[in-house]
C-alpha cells in the first residue's frame, strides 16, 4: 500500500483523485466524497471558472437534498458514536473531590479515594459514592447517559429487563445493561467494522481489477478463473468452521469477510479499466513513455473510480448487515462486545421486552436507509449522462 499512497512522481499536494479513497485508511467513504470536495473546493468561489469533474459531481450530490441530508445525519451519528465515551459512560467525566480534580473517564480510582471501604475500582452508580461526590464543595460531571455498554447497575429500581424509565431511557436488556449505551457502542462497532471492511474490499478490489483490466490477455484470463474458483467457496460455512477453530474476534471476522468482499468490486473496476485503457489519452501517455504504473495511477485509475465511489455506501450497508447477521447467529463478535446483532437475538429470546427489538430495529433500519439514500444520490451525481449539465 505504501506504493499506492506515494506514486513516485506524484505532485505535491495533488494525489490522483481516485487514489485518495484507497490512500486514506480510516474512512474510505468519507474520503471518496471529501476528496471531491478537496479538488474543487480548494477555492470554489474564486475558481468557479474551472471545476474538476469530481467537484462537479460533488455539487450535483449536494443538490440532492435527501442524499446530502442523509450524509449529514449519518456523519453526525458517526461523530456522536465516536465520542461515545463522553456521551454514555458509567464514570463521571470530571470529579472534584476535596479540592482535588480526578478524571475517572481516563483512569481507574479505587473506592477509597472517595471515602469508600474497598480497594476495588469505584462504582459511580453506587448511591453512597454519588452522595460523597455531591456533598459540600465536591462535584462531579456525569455523562448524559450514565451507563457504559457493559455496565451492570446493581442499584437498579426495576427488575431486568427494565422497560424504558427515567433512569434507562430505552430500558435495559435481560442482564440489566442500559440499552441506549449498548446501541450507541454497537452502532460504533458496526460502522467502524463496515469502514474497515469497505476499505479492505476497495483496496483489494481496485488492485485486482486494475491488474486484470490494464494488462488483459493471459493475466486477465488467469485471474478471472481464480476469482471464479474463489467465489464458489461457501463463505458462510467457512465462517462457521473458522469461528469454531479460532477464538472469535473482530479482526478474525474482518479478515474472513475481506477475503470475499472484494470480488464484486473487482469486476466493475476491471470493466472500467478495459474500457479506459484503450482510450486515446492512455495511448498518448504510452507514446509519451510513461510506465505502466504511472499510467494506471495517473490516467486510468482516476477515470475508473466512478463505480467504486458509487458502491461505497452500498458496500457499507452490506457490511453492517453481514456483521449484524453473524452476531445474530452467534458467529460474530466475541460475547460481551456490544453489537446490534446480539441485541436482536436478545429481542428474539425475550419477546415480551419489546423495547429491545424495537429500538435495535429502528437503529438498524435508519442506518441502512441513510446509506441507501446516500448511495442513490451518489449514483445520480456520478451518472455520466448527467455530467454534461
Amino acid at each position, binding site marked *: 500500500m505504501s506504493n499506492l499512497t506515494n506514486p513516485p*512522481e506524484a505532485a505535491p499536494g495533488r494525489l490522483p483523485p481516485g487514489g485518495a479513497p484507497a490512500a486514506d485508511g480510516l474512512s474510505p467513504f468519507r474520503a471518496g466524497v471529501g476528496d471531491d470536495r478537496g479538488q474543487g473546493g480548494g477555492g470554489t468561489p474564486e475558481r468557479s471558472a474551472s471545476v474538476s*469533474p469530481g467537484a462537479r459531481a460533488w455539487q450535483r450530490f449536494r443538490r440532492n437534498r435527501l442524499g446530502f441530508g442523509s450524509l449529514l445525519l449519518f456523519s453526525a451519528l458517526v461523530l456522536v458514536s465516536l465520542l461515545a465515551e463522553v456521551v454514555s459512560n458509567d464514570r463521571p467525566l470530571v470529579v472534584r473531590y476535596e479540592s482535588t480534580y480526578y478524571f475517572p473517564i481516563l483512569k481507574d480510582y479505587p473506592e477509597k479515594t472517595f471515602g469508600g471501604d474497598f480497594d476495588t475500582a469505584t462504582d459511580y452508580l453506587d448511591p453512597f459514592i454519588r452522595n460523597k461526590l455531591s456533598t459540600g464543595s465536591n462535584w462531579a460531571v456525569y455523562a448524559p447517559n450514565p451507563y457504559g455498554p457493559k455496565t451492570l447497575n446493581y442499584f437498579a429500581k426495576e427488575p431486568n429487563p427494565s422497560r424504558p424509565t427515567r433512569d434507562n431511557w430505552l430500558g435495559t436488556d435481560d442482564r440489566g445493561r442500559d440499552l441506549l449505551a449498548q446501541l450507541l457502542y454497537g452502532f460504533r462497532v458496526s460502522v467502524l467494522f463496515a469502514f474497515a471492511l469497505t476499505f479492505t474490499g476497495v483496496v483489494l478490489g481496485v488492485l485486482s481489477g486494475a491488474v486484470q483490466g490494464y494488462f488483459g490477455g493471459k493475466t486477465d484470463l488467469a485471474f478471472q478463473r481464480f476469482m471464479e474458483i474463489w467465489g464458489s467457496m461457501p463463505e458462510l460455512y467457512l465462517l462457521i468452521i473458522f469461528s469454531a477453530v479460532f477464538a472469535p474476534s473482530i479482526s478474525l471476522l474482518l479478515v474472513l469477510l475481506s477475503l470475499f468482499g472484494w470480488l464484486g468490486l473487482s469486476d466493475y473496476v476491471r470493466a472500467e479499466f478495459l474500457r479506459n485503457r484503450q482510450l486515446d489519452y492512455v495511448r498518448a501517455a504510452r507514446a509519451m513513455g510513461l510506465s505502466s504504473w504511472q499510467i494506471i495511477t495517473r490516467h486510468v485509475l482516476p477515470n475508473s473510480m466512478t463505480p467504486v465511489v458509487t458502491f461505497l455506501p452500498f458496500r457499507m450497508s452490506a457490511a453492517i448487515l453481514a456483521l449484524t447477521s453473524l452476531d445474530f447467529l452467534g458467529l460474530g463478535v466475541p460475547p460481551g462486545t456490544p453489537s446490534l446483532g446480539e441485541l436482536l437475538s436478545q429481542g428474539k429470546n425475550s419477546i415480551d421486552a419489546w423495547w429491545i427489538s424495537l429500538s435495535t430495529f429502528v437503529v438498524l433500519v435508519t442506518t441502512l436507509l441513510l446509506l441507501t439514500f446516500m448511495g442513490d444520490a451518489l449514483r445520480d451525481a456520478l451518472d455520466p449522462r448527467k455530467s454534461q449539465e
Partner: protein
Amino acid sequence: MSAATLLQVQNLRVSFAGKEVVCGIDFSVAAGEKLALVGESGSGKTVTALSLLGLVQGARTSGQAFFGAGHDEPQGTPSQDLLALSEHDLRGIRGRDIAMIFQEPMTALNPLFSVGEQIAEVLQLKQGLSPAQAQTAAVGLLADTGIPEPERRARAYPHQLSGGQRQRAMIAMALACQPRLLLADEPTTALDVSLRVQILELLASLQKRNGMAVLLITHDLNLVRHFADRIAVMENGLIVEQGKVADVFANPQHPYTRKLMDSEPVRDVIENPPAGDGPPVAQARELTVSYPVKLPGLKGWFKQGEFVAVKGASFSLPKGQTLGVVGESGSGKSTLALALLGLHPSKGELRLSGRSWSADTAANKALRRSVQVVFQDPFSSLSPRMTVEEIVGEGLRVHQPGLSAAQRQLRVVQALADVGMSQAQFPRLLQRYPHEFSGGQRQRLAIARALMVEPDMLVLDEPTSALDVTVQKQVLQLLQKLQRERGLSYLLITHDVAVIRAMAHQIMVMKSGEILESGPAAQVLTAPQHPYTQLLVGQLS
C-alpha cells in the same frame, strides 16, 4: 402558400432548459425539391429536423411548420401544423409522409432483427401488408437501393452488412412507404469517401423516381454543390442566408457563408525543406503489422490466427516533410501509426532517426521522446480528470524529471502559447479541465502536449476529421506553421483528400492493408495511376 410548397416552416424556435438552440427560423421546401441545411456542429440543424417530427426530447418548441397536402391526396386536404399535432397524429405522419435517415446506420438499425424484418415491419405497420407480402416488398425495396443479392441481404443482420450496405438498408426502410419528404441527417458522414458519391447518387435517383422532397442536413459543402437545389446556411440557430445553390456558391452574401466557402484548407508548406544530414526521420522497409485473431472452432483452443493489417509497407520520411497516408476505415492506416509509435509490435525494418524500437520498454524511453502523436477524437484524447497543466506538462515529468515545478510551468505556458492558447484568452488556463474547451481547442492542447518533449516527428491520426471545417482550417494552419518553424516531420493519416492536398509532400494510398500507390504529392494527386486513387482524387473535383 403556393400549391407546390410541401413544408412551410415559420418562426421555429427550439430551446433546451431555457437555452435557445434554434432561434426563429423560416424556410420552405417545395414538393420534389432538394434543400440543403448547412452549418457547423451546434448550429441547430439536426435539432431543426428532429423537431419537425416531434423527436426532440425535453425541448420547448414554438412556431409553425405547415406540412402541405400532396399531389396524391384528395384536393382540399388542409395542410397541418406539424408542431401543433398530438403525438398520436405525428406517429401517423412519421414514416408514411415524412421519413428520416440518420448519420450512423449501425446504431440506427436494431441489431437483433434482420434488415428484411425491419423493413417489413414498417410496411406492416404503415400499409397494413401481411407478413408475407411485406417480406416480398422489403426484398424489392432493397433491390431498388442497388444492394447485390437482395434476398440474401434481407435475411442478414446489421452487423453482417458493410457500412454502405447498412446505409442502403436504412434508405430502403425510410422509403418503404414512399414518403413525400425525406429528412436526411448527414447521410454520408459516417461512410468512406468512395461510398459517399454512390449513396448520394442513389438518393438522387430515388428522389427523382418517387418525386419526393429531400431536406439534406450536412456540413459538407461539396455534397451540397453536387446534390441540392437550394441551400440554407445556419449559424447559431439562425438561417443567415438561403437561395439557389448556384447563386449562393457564385455569390455568397453573408460573411459566415463566405467563411464556410473559404474553409478549404490552403497549402502553405515549404516544398523542399533542407533535409539536413543524418538518417531520415522515419524509414520503413517491408513493414508488416498483424493482429492475433481467434480461430473458430476447436482449432482456436490450440493456436491463434493472424490478421495482417499492414502488408509490407515501405516508405521514407525526411526531416521537415509530411507523409500523407490516405485510405478508408479498415485500410490499416491507424495500425501503421501504432506500429510507428512503438505501441504495437511489427515485423520488417522500421528506423526512426536511425534507431528502432526494442522489446525492452526502458530502452525505448529516449526514442519515445522523438516521436509523438495527436489523435482524432479530441474528447477521448485528454484525460477528463487532469488539468491543462498536468496534461501538457506530463511529458516533462517523464523526460526531464530534474525540472522544478516552476520551470515546468514556464515551459507549459510557452508550449500553450506556441499553439495559440494564452492566459489572457482563457483566465486560469493552467488550472482548467478539458471539458471546458471546444474540440478545436482540445486539439491544440493535444498538439501542445506532443510538442512539449520537442519531438522530431508527429504522428497525426486524422487530426481534423472530428472538427468543423472552419476549425479544421485553423488547426491545419497551426500545424503548417509549426512545421515551417521547427522542421517537424509529420505522418498525416486521413481519409480527406483536401487535407492531404494542403499538407502532404508525399502520399501513400492504402487499402485493405496494402499500399496501392505512393509517390510525391503532386504526382499522385494530378496523375493517379491506380483506379482506387483515381476514385479518391476524383471525389474532390
